[in-house]
């Protein structure tokens, strides 16, 4: 009988196929005239992840106890697979041959007569193989479970909505505190150098100077009266007036009056508005 071709590593053989029983477990019929088409062998080889996987398959298929492996039939089975693959000139991985050697070694060690008492502590020659088989089987199961866990892109997707960004350059934040510190620094330096006397000045006069310059921005004559906002109250008007005087003093504006009591006009000093 040929080897079953529909190989699936988790498949178990049914009892009818067993030709013998070992320790109460069914044993497989050992194939005699082995013929497996080469392409089928390639499939067999591809179906296994390596010698451990193949061994585990043979053990599970025969419903054998991993902890009590009958070395002789298992080794025969394994070697037959290997031989079939070699006979078909398949590129057999060295790992498979290494395992064959290991199985034969275990088998021969078990055949050796053992002194009765002394080596009671000596390990079963199969122990290492059993450990490796169990560890590999554990890995196989873990891999299958890992593969069945919900995984991004296969079982779910991340949510990441588009961030509507205005393409603006991020500008530095400046606080009043920063401004204050900068000013303090300037003054500290000024004091140390004693070069410049940073005087105290009425800030609101400066503010009004700027405001008036803005009003005159067009470069045309502006009626003097309109520079004052009655809403600001008497103090505001006075400050505005001081601002105009200051502007005149700094020759930033021209004030003209054609005749007494005629309207007074204010205009930016000549050329002042060129680049404004």
């Amino acid at each position: 009988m040929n080897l079953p071709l529909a190989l699936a590593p988790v498949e178990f053989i049914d009892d009818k196929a067993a030709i013998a029983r070992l320790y109460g477990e069914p044993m497989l019929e050992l194939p005699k005239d082995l013929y497996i088409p080469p392409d089928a062998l390639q499939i067999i080889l591809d179906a296994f992840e390596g010698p451990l996987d193949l061994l585990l398959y043979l053990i599970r298929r025969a419903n054998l106890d991993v902890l009590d492996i009958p070395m002789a039939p298992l080794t025969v089975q394994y070697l037959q697979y290997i031989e079939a693959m070699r006979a078909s000139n398949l590129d057999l991985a060295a790992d498979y041959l290494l395992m064959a050697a290991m199985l034969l070694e275990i088998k021969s060690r078990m055949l050796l007569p053992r002194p009765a008492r002394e080596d009671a502590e000596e390990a079963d020659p199969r122990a290492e193989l059993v450990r490796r088989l169990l560890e590999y089987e554990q890995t196989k199961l873990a891999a299958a479970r890992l593969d069945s866990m919900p995984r991004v892109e296969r079982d779910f997707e991340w949510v990441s909505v588009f961030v509507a960004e205005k393409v603006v350059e991020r500008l530095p934040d400046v606080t009043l505190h920063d401004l204050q510190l900068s000013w303090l620094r300037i003054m500290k330096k000024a004091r140390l150098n004693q070069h410049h006397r940073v005087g105290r000045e009425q800030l609101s006069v400066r503010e009004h100077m700027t405001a008036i310059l803005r009003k005159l921005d067009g470069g045309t004559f502006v009626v003097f009266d309109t520079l004052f906002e009655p809403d600001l109250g008497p103090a505001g008007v006075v400050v505005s007036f001081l601002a105009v005087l200051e502007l005149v003093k700094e020759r930033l504006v021209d004030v003209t009056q054609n005749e007494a009591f005629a309207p007074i006009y204010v205009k930016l000093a000549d050329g002042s508005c060129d680049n404004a």
Partner: protein
Amino acid sequence: MDRAITPELCKCIIETALLAASAPLSVSALRGLFDEDPGPDLVRRLVDELRADWDDAARGVELVQLAGGWRFQTRPAFQVYLDRLKEEKPPRYSRAVMETLAIIAYRQPVTRGDIEDIRGVTVSPGVLKTLESRGWIDVVGHRDTPGRPALFATTRRFLDDMGLRSLTELPALTEIERIMDLVDTTQIQAADAAADQETD
């Protein structure tokens, strides 16, 4: 499973697809979600409903229609928060820029020469350009002296950005001078050190 699909489930599927999509989805793409095509009219109606639902819930994300189809995107008002998740440090102005700004704020209108006199160093054109492009200063006139230098002053925008109603709300100079002796000089030195590391 698809056969007994309700409009409610249909809407839920469309919403899920739009939330997970990495590009806008057209109505015809959305129709492709289903085994049995619900037709363009139903899909269009459901997308409209979705947009309204999200608007009503006043969320930070909205469903918008673009050339390529529909897409969920964050509302611009939330950008300020999302920006904070970015690792980058906030940019800072160099010491030269900050001192120039302080001088213009307190002594306006001033010329570049004035600023240089006070700071004791020449002012690079880049410094004034930085402040001008920020909209914080502008030229309000020219002094009637040789060369007719431009006079700089702070703008309305500057006041707005600083949270001031008028320049008089700037910390008063006299006050500053008074507290100057009180402020532990370490604070200034620390600020100096920080500013020195920056480039302009």
